[in-house]
């Protein structure tokens, strides 16, 4: 088992020892573990890449809303911003990345065909960032494919290091958060960053997503998931830029993953994909529940709203 890695530290060691980029290590690991041939692995990833591109193209053009009308119109609006990027604060690449991320996740909410990369809820960040940068750099399709392999390698390292990609277990930090880290690493390899810079970018990105709650309105994968993917895309680009400019994450990636799992252990179940906390129990969240015909939120979850402090008279008690 020459290419087997159990965390990002080991991954970097293997890269250094064999003088290979992360993507090649990921491909060889898959060949070694499952006895697949290289063309087979690459072809399967090509399918993934094509499915992603189709989802983006469809999502940009479609403006129909999702079943309960929560999302469905943002992708087109943001994509229009690419043409007038002179008056925008973000660069063209970032705006296009956000538009693509929105397109993918809105397509998901509309029951379109998407790739769960790493999951359906966090499926927008990786295609958004990678395809936007791919267009900007006019890079080859081969590089695009390698970037996807690098992104998956980070996901594998997270899973192998006793991490998770399930929001029901660790909240949104494990879905959109890990997705952002994967995208940051992938885009850094596409820009010809070293393996160290890729992992460093992933650490910078994931550090910024730590502690994110999974609190979807009405339990639907729509609000806030869709827009979180878009802003995750801009975070991934920022992390990649910082890493390429030589900024190093003080805490290494593996320890960030451990921190993520630490936080998840202290997370209340109300903010772990149950729609019983956070944004889901705001007045807007209640309206969505009512519209869907869901039962009201149990009282024990409602008590947690903080009361206003107003001196020591204790009149409220």
């Amino acid at each position: 088992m020459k290419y087997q890695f159990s965390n990002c530290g080991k991954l970097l060691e293997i890269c250094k020892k064999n003088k290979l980029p992360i993507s090649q290590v990921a491909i060889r690991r898959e060949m070694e573990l499952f006895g697949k041939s290289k063309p087979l692995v690459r072809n399967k990833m090509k399918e993934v890449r094509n499915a992603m591109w189709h989802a983006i193209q469809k999502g940009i053009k479609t403006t129909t809303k999702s079943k309960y009308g929560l999302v469905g119109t943002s992708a087109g609006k943001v994509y229009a911003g690419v043409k007038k990027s002179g008056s925008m604060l973000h660069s063209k690449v970032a705006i296009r990345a956000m538009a693509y991320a929105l397109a993918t996740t809105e397509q998901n909410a509309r029951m379109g065909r998407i790739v769960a990369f790493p999951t359906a809820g966090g499926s927008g960040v990786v295609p958004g960032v990678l395809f936007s940068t791919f267009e900007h750099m006019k890079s080859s399709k081969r590089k695009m494919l390698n970037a996807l392999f690098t992104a998956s390698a980070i996901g594998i390292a997270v899973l192998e290091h006793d991490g998770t990609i399930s929001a029901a277990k660790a909240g949104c930090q494990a879905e959109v958060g890990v997705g952002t880290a994967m995208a940051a690493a992938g885009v850094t390899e596409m820009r010809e960053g070293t393996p160290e810079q890729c992992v460093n970018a992933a650490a910078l990105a994931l550090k910024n997503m730590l502690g994110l709650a999974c609190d979807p309105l009405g339990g639907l994968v729509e609000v806030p998931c869709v827009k979180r993917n878009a802003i995750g895309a801009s975070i991934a680009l920022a992390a990649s830029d910082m890493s390429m400019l030589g900024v190093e994450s003080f805490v290494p990636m593996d320890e960030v993953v451990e921190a993520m799992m630490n936080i998840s252990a202290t997370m209340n179940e109300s903010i772990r994909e149950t729609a019983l906390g956070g944004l889901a129990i705001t007045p807007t969240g209640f309206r969505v529940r009512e519209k869907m015909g869901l039962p009201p939120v149990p009282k024990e979850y409602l008590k947690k709203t903080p009361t206003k402090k107003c001196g020591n008279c204790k009149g409220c008690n």
Partner: protein
Amino acid sequence: MLVSIFDVAGPIMVGPSSSHTAGACKIGQIARALFNGTPTEADFYLYGSFATVYQGHATDKALLAGVMRFLTNDPRLKKAFEIAREKGLKYKFVPVKIDSPEHHPNTVRIILKNKSRQVSLVGSSIGGGKIKITFINDVPVDLEMIAGRFFSLLIGHDNEPSNILHPLYGKLIDWHIPIAGKQTICDVRNKKKCLTTLNIEGSYLKLLQVLELEKLSGIDFVRSLTKLLK
């Protein structure tokens, strides 16, 4: 745990949720594969979070689509109800308020029927499109499938004599198919019938081979759950 690249990069699926849509579709596919024929009636009993949010996540459409042998990435999944009506497949969804048979939040009991037979199955979607089958015809089993990597062979057979499966193992050895895991469970009510699940990870059985295994004496049925999941 062995993690494949394509556990992270994938599955390619129809939204909106990997556990409520893709997982549900896979449970439906397994039910249909076990039934091994064309059902005319499909009943779904939904437990836990499947019971409360199934309409918003299109769990109902996904289950029905799976029963009609659609893959998780089939765009026809959206029109599952219309297609089922065209095919003359009657369906019914019953949300059940009580706890699920084995207390997982995303659980469904599927009962498929036609004139000659009936198959029931309980399955849970355990996140990220992974599923688990816990009961088949009320016999407890433990089938776990992660992105189609665990290829299983399901065998219904008589309880006696104890070496009844030996000819079957012999055939598998002749075909160079390794057995990575084995589990036999007997029906509580009908002590004469047992269900064995064989894990033949990494190998692949042809349909003719499955039919050949089915002809062995004392074996009721053999179902290969190999090519279902993508």
